[in-house]
């Protein structure tokens, strides 16, 4: 089934699952979405409007990561955005990939890539130590 409540009227929102993991995933998408709205748009304004790609450099990041604030900010945003994105992709795969084997393979690939990227991103944020 595509869309959700009052589908016949052309409205699109995923129907709220009854219980269990799917319900938590449904709630997570909405809660993380609101948090990401603030965090990601703030990130865009700071990095792409106030600053821009011409000023972003190693020294820029070193200065930014000298205090724990932006490291924490980026770590929280990374986890929320990546899990939000992986779960959204899971929804898309479940919609489009119906054959059993292919579904298992594509979902597994998604989770493996998601996990590796989450680990890599976290490692970078937590262990970065500027060269002097």
């Amino acid at each position, binding site marked *: 089934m*595509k*869309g959700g*409540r*009052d*589908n*016949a*009227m*052309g*409205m*699109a*929102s995923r129907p*709220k699952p009854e219980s269990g993991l799917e319900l938590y995933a449904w709630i997570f998408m*909405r809660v993380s*979405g*609101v948090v*990401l*709205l603030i965090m*990601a*748009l703030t990130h*865009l304004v700071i990095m*792409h*409007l106030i600053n*821009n*790609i*011409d000023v*972003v*450099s*190693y*020294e820029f*990041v070193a200065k930014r990561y000298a205090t724990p604030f932006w490291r924490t900010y980026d770590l929280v945003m*990374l986890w929320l*955005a*990546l899990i939000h*994105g*992986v779960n*959204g*992709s899971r929804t*898309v795969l479940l919609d*489009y990939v119906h054959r059993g084997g292919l579904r298992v393979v594509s979902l597994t690939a998604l989770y493996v*890539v998601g996990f590796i*990227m989450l680990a*890599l*991103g976290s*490692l*970078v944020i937590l*262990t*970065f130590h500027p*060269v002097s």
Partner: protein
Amino acid sequence: MSVKPQQYITYRGKAGQWSWLLHRVTGLGVLVFLLAHIVDTAMIGWGPGAYNAAMSLYRRPVFRAGEVLLAGAVLYHALNGVRIFIIDFWPETTTIHKKLVYAVAALFVAIYVPCAIYMLRWVAR
């Protein structure tokens, strides 16, 4: 049940369908960039040379144009996400769902157009 190709991107037509499709496309697009962004940021572990080389790639015109598209994708996904949130947690708003779709479109244009022009100021240089 067989599914026609066009049914993968359409269902009942009208405003909600296009919002749903755009939400998917922008969401997947932002995720692809996020994965690339994790890799480019990881270059910082190899020192200033590697990281600055990665950033100079982003200064190419095609990536600068992509940056503007990315900002649009994030903004649309965020605004339409608010619409979904409203519809889900206040179901009575389904009676004005078309107005909500138009509100998202209006807000998107009002915020995105000036930001995109500002981000594209390098073109005039």
